[in-house]
C-alpha cells in the first residue's frame, strides 16, 4: 500500500508555544481522502490532532482546511491528488483555513467570522402576509434557482479563500451573500427590495466583491457564491433601480457594448461609457477623478495618446459583431446553475 506524508500545521494554545509543523506517515490507498489520512494518524499516532469532522462525505461542512495552500474539504480531497499538487517533494501540507482565528490545530473560530456574517443578512424567510392554506405556488425554475444556494453546507471554504475579505475583514463575504440570494431569489420572500437595498448600500456589501473567482474555485458544493453575488447586483439595479455605488453593473454593460462597437476593448471610451456617455453629468467628475491615473499611464507609456484616440483593433469589428449577433439570437442564456442542466443536454445532443 502506498505511503503518504502529511505535514500538519499544529497549534496547541495551552502549551504557550507558537504554531509548529509535524509530519505523519500513513499507509492508505491513493483514492482515500486527506481526512482519512489525518484520522489514521490521529488513531494510530497522536490522538491530540484537532480537526472538526463528522460526515466524511462533503455534507456536514466541518472539515474545511488548506491543502497545499488551497482551501478544500479534507474529506473530498484524495491523497493521491493532494500529493500531485504538493509544492514540497510529495508532502501533503495541511493548515487551518484563512481569514478566521485559529483555536487549535486545524480548528478555526467559525462563530467569530463566518456565522457572524451569516447573521448579518437576516437569514430567515420574511413572507408577506399570512401563509396560504396550502403551499405557495412557485415556478419550478425559481425553486431550482435558489436550490443552488441552498446547497451551501456552510463550510466556510469560500470565506477562507476570499481575497476581498483578506483586504477588508468587514466585507459581508461570499457565503453570507449567497445565503442572502437564497431569500432574494425566493418568490415567497416579501422583502426583496429591502434586502437588496441594504446589501447595496452597505459599503462592505455586494459591491465589495472584486470578481476574483476564488470563492467559486474553493466551493466544494458548486454554490458559486460569486454568481449569486452577481445575481444580487442584477436584481438591485435591473429590478429595483438601486444605484450602484461602485457603478459595477453599468460598468459591466459598458464593457460589453464597448467591445461590440469597437471589436476589442477601447479603454479610452470605457470610463465615460460606464457613466452614461461623455456628456453625462456623473461622467465629468469621475473623469476628472481619473485624470491622475491617466497621467500616470501616460508617463509610464502604458497609454499612448495615439492609441487612446485611434483604436487600432477597429478593423476586426465586423467579425466581432457577427459573434454578438449569434449569441443574442439565442434565447435568454441559461445561467450557470448546478441544478439546471441545459448545457449538458446540448452536449449530449451534439454527440
Amino acid at each position, binding site marked *: 500500500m502506498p505511503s503518504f506524508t502529511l505535514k500538519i500545521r499544529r497549534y496547541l494554545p495551552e502549551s504557550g508555544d507558537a504554531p509548529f509543523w509535524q509530519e505523519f506517515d500513513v499507509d492508505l490507498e491513493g483514492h482515500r481522502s486527506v481526512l482519512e489520512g489525518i484520522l489514521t494518524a490521529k*488513531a494510530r499516532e497522536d490522538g*491530540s490532532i484537532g480537526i472538526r469532522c463528522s*460526515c466524511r462525505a462533503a455534507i*456536514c461542512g*466541518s472539515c474545511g482546511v488548506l491543502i497545499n495552500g488551497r482551501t478544500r474539504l479534507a474529506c473530498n480531497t484524495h491523497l493521491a491528488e493532494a500529493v500531485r499538487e504538493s509544492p514540497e517533494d510529495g508532502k501533503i501540507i495541511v493548515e487551518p483555513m484563512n481569514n478566521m482565528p485559529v483555536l487549535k490545530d486545524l480548528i478555526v473560530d467559525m462563530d467569530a467570522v463566518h456565522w457572524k456574517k451569516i447573521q448579518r443578512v437576516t437569514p430567515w424567510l420574511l413572507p408577506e402576509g399570512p401563509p396560504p392554506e396550502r*403551499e*405557495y405556488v412557485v*415556478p419550478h425554475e425559481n425553486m431550482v434557482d435558489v436550490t443552488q444556494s441552498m446547497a451551501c453546507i456552510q463550510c466556510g471554504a469560500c470565506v477562507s479563500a476570499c481575497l476581498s475579505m483578506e483586504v477588508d475583514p468587514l466585507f459581508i463575504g461570499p457565503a453570507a451573500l449567497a445565503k442572502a440570494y437564497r431569500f432574494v431569489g*425566493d418568490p415567497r420572500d416579501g422583502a426583496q427590495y429591502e434586502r437588496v437595498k441594504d446589501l447595496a448600500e452597505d459599503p462592505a456589501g455586494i459591491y465589495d466583491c472584486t470578481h476574483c473567482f476564488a470563492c467559486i474555485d474553493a466551493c466544494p458544493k458548486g454554490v458559486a457564491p460569486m454568481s449569486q453575488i452577481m445575481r444580487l447586483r442584477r436584481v438591485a439595479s435591473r429590478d429595483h433601480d438601486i444605484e450602484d455605488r461602485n457603478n459595477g453593473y453599468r460598468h459591466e454593460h459598458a464593457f460589453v457594448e464597448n467591445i461590440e462597437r469597437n471589436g476589442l476593448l477601447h479603454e479610452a471610451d470605457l470610463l465615460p461609457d460606464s457613466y452614461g456617455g461623455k456628456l453625462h453629468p456623473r461622467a465629468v467628475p469621475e473623469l476628472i477623478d481619473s485624470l491622475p491615473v491617466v497621467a500616470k499611464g501616460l508617463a509610464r507609456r502604458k497609454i499612448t495618446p495615439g492609441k487612446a484616440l485611434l483604436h487600432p483593433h477597429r478593423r476586426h469589428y465586423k467579425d466581432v459583431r457577427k459573434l454578438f449577433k449569434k449569441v443574442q439570437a439565442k434565447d435568454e442564456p441559461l445561467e450557470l446553475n448546478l441544478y439546471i442542466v441545459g448545457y449538458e443536454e446540448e452536449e449530449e445532443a451534439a454527440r
Partner: protein
Amino acid sequence: MPSHDVLIIGAGLAGQRAALAAAEAGATVAIMSKVHPVRSHSNAAAGGINAALNPEDSWESHAYDTVKGSDYLGDQDAIEIMCREAPDEILWLEHRGVTFHRNETGHLGTRAFGGASQARTYYVADITGQALLHVLYEQLMKHHAAIDRYEEWFVTSLLQDAGGHCVGAVARNIRDGAMETFTAKGTILASGGAGQAFKPTTNALICTGDGIAQAYRAGAPLMDMEMIQYHPTTLLENGFLITEGARGEGAQLFNKDGERFMEKYAPNKMELASRDVVSRAEQTEIDEGRGVGPDGQGILLDVTLVPKKRILEALREIVNIGRDFAGVDITREPITIRPGQHYIMGGVKTDVEGRTPIPGLYAAGEVACVSVHGGNRLGANSLLDTLIFGRRAGAHAAARADGMPMPAEPPASRVRDEEGWIASLLQRGPGSGRRVSEIKDELGEAMNRHCAVFRDEQGLSTCLDVVRRLQEEARSAYVDDRGTIFNQDVLGAIELGYMLDCAEATLLSALERRESRGAQFRTDYPERNDDEWLRHITVSLGASGRPELGYAPVTITSWQPEERKY
C-alpha cells in the same frame, strides 16, 4: 448555572423542531449540541420525507404501508398520529422556507420510495435533510431571543433529583473544557442514532448513541434495540449511502450474471420493496456466489437507466459521491454496492408525547423508539418521525413546565464527580491498556460480522462475549490528548462507552427474539412467529447494575398482522 423550562440535547431535526415548538408555546429553551447544529447528521438524509398530502392519497394508506413495512411490530396508535399529522408538517416547513421541489404547475412534487403504495415523498433535489436542517436553523436564529443555543457542548450525563426525576444535564464546553450543570423542568433527548457501533456504516462519526446510553444509565428502558436497518445500497468500499431515491427514480439491481434478481424476491415492487427485503435478497445473491467485485461481495446498481437530465437535476449528490468516493461516473456505468448498516429502529422507549418512563425526561428522533418503525423503517419516514415527535415533545414539555417551579440546583459535588471521572480518563497512559480507536474498530467489525442482515445464536453469543471483553478493556483504555481546549480525544473515550452499552442492548435483544421479523433475520429461526413474538423487547439497567430484559405489548388499532409480500 443556566436554567431553562426546557433543555434540549441534540440539534438535528428532532432537537431543532422541539426547540421551536417549545419556544412557540412560550417556554424558555436551551438547545445543546456537540457539533454546530447544521453539522448534525440529519443533513445526510438525501431522499426525502413522506406525507399523504396529495388529495388522491390518504393518511390511512401511508399508515398501512408503515405498519406493513414495520412487519407489524410498529405501534399503530403512534403510526396513525405520525401519518395524520404529516401533511400539515410539510406545509409548516414549506411556509418557513424549505425549497421543496415543484412540479410544472408550481405545486409541490413527489417522488416514489421503497415500500410505499403511492409516490408521497417530498424532497429538495437530493439534499432534503440538509435543506430542512438549514431552514430550521434559520428559524432558530430568528427566534434567538427565546432559544439559547449552546453549540459545541457535549452532554456527559443526565441530572436526576432524589426522586429519580430528570432535572437537566451535565455538559462540557468543548471549546475550553469547562463542565457545567444545566437545570431544566423538562429535558428532551434528541441526540440521534448509534451507527458508529458498526463498521462500516452510512452514519457520521458523531452517531455514537450518547443519548441512548445516557437514558439507559439513568434507568430508562430501551426498546426494539435488535432492529438494525441495513440499507440495500451502500458503497462497497466505504459504506457511503446511495439514496433510495436512485431506485425511486428507476435505477435497478443486477447480480454478476446480469440478472435482475429482485424479480425472484419481490415480483411486484421489485427494487422498491421494503429495505429489509431488498437487503436480504442482495445478501442471498452474494452468499450464493453471484456477487460482483474482487471478493464477490458486491451487487451492481445501474443508475444509467434514469434519464441523464433527471439524474443531474434530482440525484446530483450521488453523482458526486460516485465520482469522489468510488471513482465511478454513475451517469455512464453501474456502481458496486452492498447492504450496509444505516439506522436503528430501536431506542429510548417513549409514548406518543415523547415521554420516557422517567418523569421530566423526553426523547425524540432516532434516539427514541415510539415505536413507529417497528421491525423495519420505510425510507423517508425517519425525517417525518423526527419532526412530528420532536414537535410533540417540545410542545408537551413546554406545557408541563408552565407553572411548575424550577428544580433546585444540583449539589456542586455532581460536577466535581464528573470532572473527576474525566480527569481519571486523562491520567491513563499507554501503559494502562489499549487505544480507544482500536477498541472501537474491533467493536464495529464484530457487530458487522455477527449482527447484520443474517444472524444466529452462535454468532450473536460470540459477539456478546467480544462486547463484554471490550467493555472491560474500555475501562483502562487511554487517550493522548491531555488538554482542555477541543480535547476530542477524551470525548472519543466517553463515546466508546456509550457505543458499547448500545451494542450490548442490541445483542441481548437479538438473542432474545427467537424468530425472524423485519430487520432481524435469524437463520436458526427463519419464520415470523406472531404467537410468541408479536411484542416489543425492552432492556433496562437492573438494580444489580446488569441489563434486564422485559416485554411491552404492540398496539394494534386497525391493521391485523398478515403475511408480508412485495
